[in-house]
């Protein structure tokens, strides 16, 4: 069966269908009309060039970029880290922020506010309240001191940061002391 580029037949000025030239391409010299018609000869020459070019393209092994594997793995790892997307209401359109990005902000605020160290962070949207979240943040506190004042300050910093740096409101913020670390210099707990 002859294959054509479009469904409509392509008719040469001499009245020959281009598909006929294609099907007889390798024995065109023996054809009564096509073997002598200049229109058919030109068309046959073009088709031969096309066949040769496409054959070369097909035979060419695909050459992926040298860093393709590394790029794929970097993106896959990043996608896995980002977690789910949380709605971030804007004036007129739709926006989202990844759970990973928001947790990074909350951890940064925690770790750079004083003596507390951030640990696990769980975030969930409040049903039917776009832009409002519930957050559970685990922290490590220094051993031997009352953590209450530092926890109160941290709560205020986190609530401000969620609004100022992200644009979200935390309806519920549970800060859970998960561990203590020794207060000897240089022995601050790992995150």
């Amino acid at each position, binding site marked *: 069966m002859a294959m054509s580029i479009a469904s409509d037949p392509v008719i040469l000025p001499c009245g020959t269908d281009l598909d006929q030239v294609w099907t007889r391409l390798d024995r065109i010299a023996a054809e009564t009309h096509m073997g002598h018609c200049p229109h058919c000869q030109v068309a046959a020459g073009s088709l031969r060039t096309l066949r040769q070019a496409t054959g070369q393209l097909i035979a060419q092994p695909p050459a*992926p970029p040298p860093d393709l594997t590394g790029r*794929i793995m970097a993106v896959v790892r*990043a996608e896995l880290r980002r977690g789910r997307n949380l709605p971030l209401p804007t004036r007129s359109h739709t926006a*989202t922020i990844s759970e990973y990005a928001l947790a*990074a902000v909350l951890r940064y605020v925690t770790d750079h506010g004083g003596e507390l160290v951030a640990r696990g962070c769980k975030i969930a949207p409040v049903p039917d309240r776009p832009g409002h979240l519930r957050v559970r943040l685990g922290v490590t506190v220094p051993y031997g001191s009352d953590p209450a004042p530092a926890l109160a300050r941290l709560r205020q910093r986190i609530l401000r940061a969620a609004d100022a740096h*992200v644009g979200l409101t935390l309806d519920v913020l549970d800060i859970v002391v998960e561990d203590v670390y020794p207060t000897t210099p240089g022995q601050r707990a790992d995150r």
Partner: protein
Amino acid sequence: MTVNPPRPLAADLAAAVAAHVPTLAGVAHLAPGWRDLIAGLPAPAILRHPDSHRASGVRVTVRGPQVEVDVALVIAWPHQARAVCETTQTEVATLITRLADTDSCQVRVAVRDIHIDTTP
């Protein structure tokens, strides 16, 4: 007879958006996903659908008179993510309106990460 100029393809619009968004205040850079890698692979032009194009963290889909744009980006600290999203949506909608000659443009922005530069 008035001849209307050809409408830009989704690929042209995506390229324009991808060039403009990283210049906006508060945008650290675009955040390509794994699906964007496919667009980078060599493929015959006949396989690329003119109405939808994805590359470099930007996807543009043309549905008749409506243009839909998805932008994935990373915010630069200490900018507010929501404000940057709103700016991006406004800027992209204006750009698409100008290039594609349409008033119907939906822009979705996804913040993938926030780049906190802690260097002094």
